[in-house]
C-alpha cells in the first residue's frame, strides 16, 4: 500500500494542520509516513502546500511528482497543481471556492462544498476537516474513525470542545465522497 | 548594500571611509544591533564614525519568529522565554542609548516612539537632526525608535501601540540624550561643558 497525498490552499486554511493530521493518523494506523511542507515566504496569505506519503513499506522520497490523491482548497491551487495528479488518481476540491477544475481522463473528482459545510456546522475552522473526511472515504487509505481518533490525540485538551464540530465535518465530507462513488 | 546580521556598522564604516562625502546609514533591529552586533555598534559609536544609525527596537526577534531579544522586557513572553523573561536566567533588558551615552564618540543620541502623531513628528525631527549631524561632519548619530510587533507580542495593532506608551517607555524613556559635536572635535585640554543633555 502506498498513498501520496498532496494538499494545497491559502495560508490560514489549515492545510498544514490537516496534512499533519493525516500523517499522524497514518502513524497511529501502523503505517510509515512522512509530512513534507513547502512554505511560501509570507507567513500568512501565501499559498501553502504539503505532501504526505503513507506506506506499508519504505517511504523513500517524501516528495511526490504525481500524487495519487490531491486535496485542493482554493482556485489558485487548483490552477497550479491539479494537472500533476497521477493517472487514475483522486482529486478532491473545495467546491465552495473552486468553480471549475480540469480533470484528466481516468481520474476521479469529488467536489466538497467545504466552506458551506463549515458554515452549517457553525465553525469556520472545520473547512479542512470536511475535505479530509472526503479524502479518507474516497481513498480508503484510513477510516474516518482513525482520523477522528488521531485528531483527539493531537489536539490540546482545551480544544477538545471543538471535537464534535470536527467530527461532524469529517463525517459530512466522507458521506459526500461515498455518495459520489 | 546588505550586511550580515549585526555587521551593519562595520560595513558602513568601510563604505564611509572610501566615500566620506556620501550619506551613509544603517537600519538595524534590536536583535541585530543590541545582540549579535553589540561589538560593532559600540566600536563604531566609540570611533565617532560619521554615519547615522536607525535603530528599531520592538523588544523581540521578528524575522526568526518571535524569540527573546536583548531588549525584551522582564516578564515578556517570547518563544525562547516561554515563561516570561527573568533577570535571573537572561539578565536585564539593555538600554542602548544610555549605554552609548557613556562614550565620547557619538554626536547625536535620541530615543523616540512611533505611536501617536506628536511622537511620530518628534521622531521625524530627531532623524532629520541625526542626518544633519552627519552632513555637518559632527559624527556618529543614532535614533532609537520604539516600534510595535503585534504579531509576536500577540496583540492587535492598537493594543501594541498602547503597550509602548504605557509600558515600554517606562524602561526606555524618550529623550534626546546628546546633541553636540563629537568629543574628539573639541580642542584638547578644554573642560567639557556642563550637562551633555540637550
Amino acid at each position, binding site marked *: 500500500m502506498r498513498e501520496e497525498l498532496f494538499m494545497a490552499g491559502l495560508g490560514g486554511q489549515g492545510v498544514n494542520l490537516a496534512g*499533519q493530521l493525516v*500523517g*499522524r493518523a497514518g*502513524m497511529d494506523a501502523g503505517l*510509515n*509516513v*512522512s*509530512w*513534507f*511542507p513547502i512554505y511560501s515566504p509570507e507567513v500568512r496569505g501565501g499559498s501553502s502546500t504539503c505532501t504526505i506519503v503513507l506506506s506499508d*513499506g*519504505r*517511504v*523513500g*522520497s*517524501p*516528495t511526490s*511528482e504525481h500524487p495519487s490523491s490531491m486535496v485542493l482548497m482554493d482556485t489558485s491551487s487548483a490552477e497550479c497543481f491539479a494537472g500533476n495528479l497521477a493517472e487514475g488518481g483522486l482529486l478532491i476540491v473545495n467546491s465552495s471556492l473552486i468553480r471549475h477544475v480540469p480533470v484528466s481522463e481516468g481520474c476521479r473528482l469529488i467536489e466538497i462544498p467545504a466552506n458551506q459545510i463549515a458554515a452549517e456546522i457553525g465553525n469556520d475552522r472545520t473547512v479542512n476537516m470536511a475535505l479530509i473526511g472526503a479524502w479518507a472515504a474516497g481513498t480508503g487509505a484510513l477510516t474516518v474513525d482513525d482520523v477522528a481518533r488521531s485528531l483527539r490525540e493531537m489536539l490540546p485538551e482545551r480544544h477538545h470542545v471543538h471535537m464534535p464540530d470536527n467530527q461532524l465535518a469529517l463525517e459530512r465530507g466522507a458521506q459526500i465522497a461515498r455518495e459520489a462513488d | 548594500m*546588505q550586511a*550580515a546580521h*549585526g555587521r551593519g556598522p562595520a560595513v558602513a564604516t568601510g563604505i564611509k571611509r572610501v566615500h566620506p562625502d556620501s550619506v551613509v546609514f544603517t537600519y538595524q533591529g534590536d*536583535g541585530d544591533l543590541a*545582540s*549579535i552586533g*553589540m561589538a560593532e555598534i559600540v566600536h563604531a559609536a566609540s570611533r565617532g564614525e560619521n554615519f547615522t544609525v536607525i535603530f528599531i527596537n520592538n523588544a523581540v*526577534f521578528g524575522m*526568526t*519568529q518571535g*524569540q*527573546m531579544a*536583548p531588549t525584551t522586557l522582564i516578564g515578556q513572553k517570547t*518563544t*525562547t*522565554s*516561554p*515563561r516570561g523573561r527573568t533577570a535571573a*536566567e*537572561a539578565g536585564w533588558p539593555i538600554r542602548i542609548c544610555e549605554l552609548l551615552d557613556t562614550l565620547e564618540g557619538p554626536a547625536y543620541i535620541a530615543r523616540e516612539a512611533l505611536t501617536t502623531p506628536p511622537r511620530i513628528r518628534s521622531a521625524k525631527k530627531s532623524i532629520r537632526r541625526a542626518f544633519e549631524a552627519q552632513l555637518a561632519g559632527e559624527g556618529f548619530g543614532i535614533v532609537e525608535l520604539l516600534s510595535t510587533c503585534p504579531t509576536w507580542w500577540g496583540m492587535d495593532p492598537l493594543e501594541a501601540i498602547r503597550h509602548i506608551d504605557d509600558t515600554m517607555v517606562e524602561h526606555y524613556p524618550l529623550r534626546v540624550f546628546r546633541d553636540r559635536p563629537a568629543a574628539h572635535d573639541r580642542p584638547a585640554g578644554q573642560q567639557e561643558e556642563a550637562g551633555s543633555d540637550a
Partner: protein
Amino acid sequence: MNEERRRVFISGNEATAEGGIAGGCRHFFGYPITPQNKIPEYMAEHLPPIGGVYLQAESEVAAINMVYGASSAGARVMTTSSSPGIALMQEGLSYMLGSELPAVIVNMVRGGPGLGNVAVAQSDYWLSTRGAGHGDGRCITLTPYSVQELHNFTAGAFEIADRYQNIVMVLGDAILATMMEPCELIPRREMEPPGRPYAVGPHEAGERERNIVNSLWVDFDAMEAVNIRNEERYARAAAEITDWEEFGSDDPQVLLCAYGISARLCEGAVMRAEEAGVRLRLLRPKTVFPFPTVPIREWSERVDAMLVVELSMGQFVEDVRLAVEGRCPVDLLSRAGGNMPTVSEVLAKVREVAAKAGVAV
C-alpha cells in the same frame, strides 16, 4: 526501567532537540537562525524544568565560545545552527579541536553561499568534513536521512564525542529539519556530573594535577603532538564507527551514492528501478567523516558505473571518486539553491550513466 519507547509524530528539529536531551545533554547555547529555530525553542521549553541550562547567546560567535567553556568544564554540551551560523562558529570549533574537547554541533544546512536562502541544500559538505576553522583537525560527521535518525544520531553523538574527545557534527538540512515523521523516542539519559579527567573545575587540593584547557602550543613538538593525536583519533574512528546502509539489487549494474535527503530520493529511485531497466543499488553513508571508503571501493570493482546525487555542485562526489580511484566511471547529478531532482530525473540519469558505461538498457 520502562523499555517501551514512545512513538511520536514530530519534526526533525524537535527530534534533534529531544535527541540531545536523550543523549544526556543539559547545556545548550544557541542563536536563532532559520530553519532550525524549533531546536532552541524546544530547549528553552524543556531544559530548565529538568535542571538544564538554556542560554541564547548574543551571536553564533558567542554561542560556540560558550560551548567551548562548558565543554572545558566537563559538561555534555551542544549547539545547533544553520549554514551561515556554522560559518561564524568556525573559530570556536578550531579552538575546541586544538584543546581536544568533545561537543555536538548540528547544522541544518540551507542554501548558500552568502545569505543564500532558507531552502534545502547539502552545500556544507566540505565545511563539515574538511575541517573546522583553521588548522589540522576534522569534525566527525554524521549524516541522518530521516527524523528518526536525526533523533538517534544526535543522542549517540555525545558518546562518540566523548570517546574520541572530538567535535561531532550532525549534518541535516532544511527539509529534514522541518518535515515530520514518526519517531521512537530514546529514554532521556540522566545528566552526568561534570567531572571529566581533562576538565577544569573545583577539586580538593592535592586531589589531582590542575587541568589547563588551551590550544596554544608554542613548542613545535607539542603542537605537532596534538596534530598526531588528532590523526590517531580519526584512524581509530575510521576503524570503529564508519557506518552506511545499502538497499536494492544484490547484483547491481549501477550503484547510487547519496547521503541525507538525497538518499531519500535515491531510495525512491531504487524502489522504481524497473522503470529504468537497470539493476540498481543505493549505498548511503551514515558517516561521511570517517567515510565508507572500503565498501565503495569494493563495489567499484563489481558495478559498471556509479551515480552520485547531491544537493551541491560536486562536493560529496570527490570522496566517492577518491574511494573508487578510477576503477569505474562516477557520474554526478546535482541540484542547488533549494531545488531537488525528482525521482524520475534520478532514473533518467541512471539510464544515461548506464548507457554510457555500455550497459544494455
